[in-house]
């Protein structure tokens, strides 16, 4: 057993768990959390793909991609959270509309 195997499967599992959460979670905030889990799962897959048996250096390109992915995800998360806050404000302030 090698780390790529272990963490690859871990990543897939995390992705799937995130997927279940994203599909089922009733709570808005928790859905964001779940989506974030998905993204970590996807990151795992790329990092695992980059991994080479130790003496060899890993492939740097996927690392760059994952970093990009993380930044993209934080942006999306920020927007989603802003929407949640705004919606919550609107819902709490008036009930018509």
């Amino acid at each position, binding site marked *: 057993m090698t780390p790529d195997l272990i963490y690859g499967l871990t990543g897939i599992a995390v*992705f799937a768990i995130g997927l279940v959460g994203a*599909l*089922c979670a009733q709570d808005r905030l928790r859905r964001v959390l779940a989506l974030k889990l998905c993204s970590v799962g996807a*990151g795992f897959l790329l990092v695992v793909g980059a991994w080479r048996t130790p003496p060899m250096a890993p492939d740097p390109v996927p690392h760059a991609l994952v970093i990009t992915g993380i930044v993209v995800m*934080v942006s999306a998360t920020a927007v989603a959270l802003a929407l949640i806050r*705004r919606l919550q404000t609107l819902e709490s302030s008036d009930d018509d509309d």
Partner: protein
Amino acid sequence: MNDPLVIFDLLLGGAIIALAIASLTVRDLFAAVVLFIIFGLLSALAWVRLSAPDVALAEAAIGTGVTGALLLKTLHHLRFVTGTLGHQSALSVTPHTPVPSGVIWANAAFCGLITLGLAVAFLGAPQAGPGFDALVSEAMPASGVEHPVTAILLNFRAYDTLMEVVVLLAAVIAVWQIERGLSDAPAPVMGEVWQGFARLVLPAIVVVGTYLLWAGAEAPGGAFQGGAVLAAVGLLLLLTRAYVPRPGHRGIARCAFVLGTVVFAAVALLVASGGRVAFEYPADHAKALILLIEGLVTISIAATLAALFHGREPVALRNKEDRNDT
């Protein structure tokens, strides 16, 4: 099982999965966020195990740190600012009509199938398969930097990185657009001790951030990680009310947000002359240009992340108009 690290890996993997499940199932939202932060840190650790320190840094700083802060801020906002939650439930931000458990189980079953399928696909994929390794090492000398990840981010695939910065810009524009007219309830104020602590810590963080940025050229670290650390400065300033955004600051803020994008894009276009295409840095100026871009991008990233944390655009509140500005 001859490698003791395998046990560590297994334990770590198990812990990650367990934390993922826990953060989705624990009833208390605050706990969920905390568990998620731990999950993020452990994931970063796992990526270190996979020889990806840059990724681990980015994940820890941005994926976990900034995201965690955003989540906590939102939670705080939902609980105390809008007051919708009150004591009623820490369980859920939004009460919905419940989805039947059958549907949830069906979802879970499908996801189980997906996991199975993906696992089969994963196991069938070539181990340590083809990659960019050879290409990267071949192109490294011409990249202008020593650290391959930085070379990729700012040279080989600089276009992606530019667009990533654009994503951040889009996000901050969207957030400013979305959040408005909120009642300006007091932001959480930290205690005296914390303020003092902040005053001490801030310079140190700035130094660390700058170092990370600099180091990015040769070692793990770089604009994003550096930016994230600098953003932490902003967070502290905001939290301690050492800095309070004012409407008058909007112009500067906008400039700060777009600075990285503009410089990055402008450089990319400016170098495209004399038969060169965009992003094709002249070999002798590559390092300087990359450092320039990285530096300015870091400022933009820091400002953007801090703005994302702060949320709404600093506007002078004119109660009626803003509230009903639709």
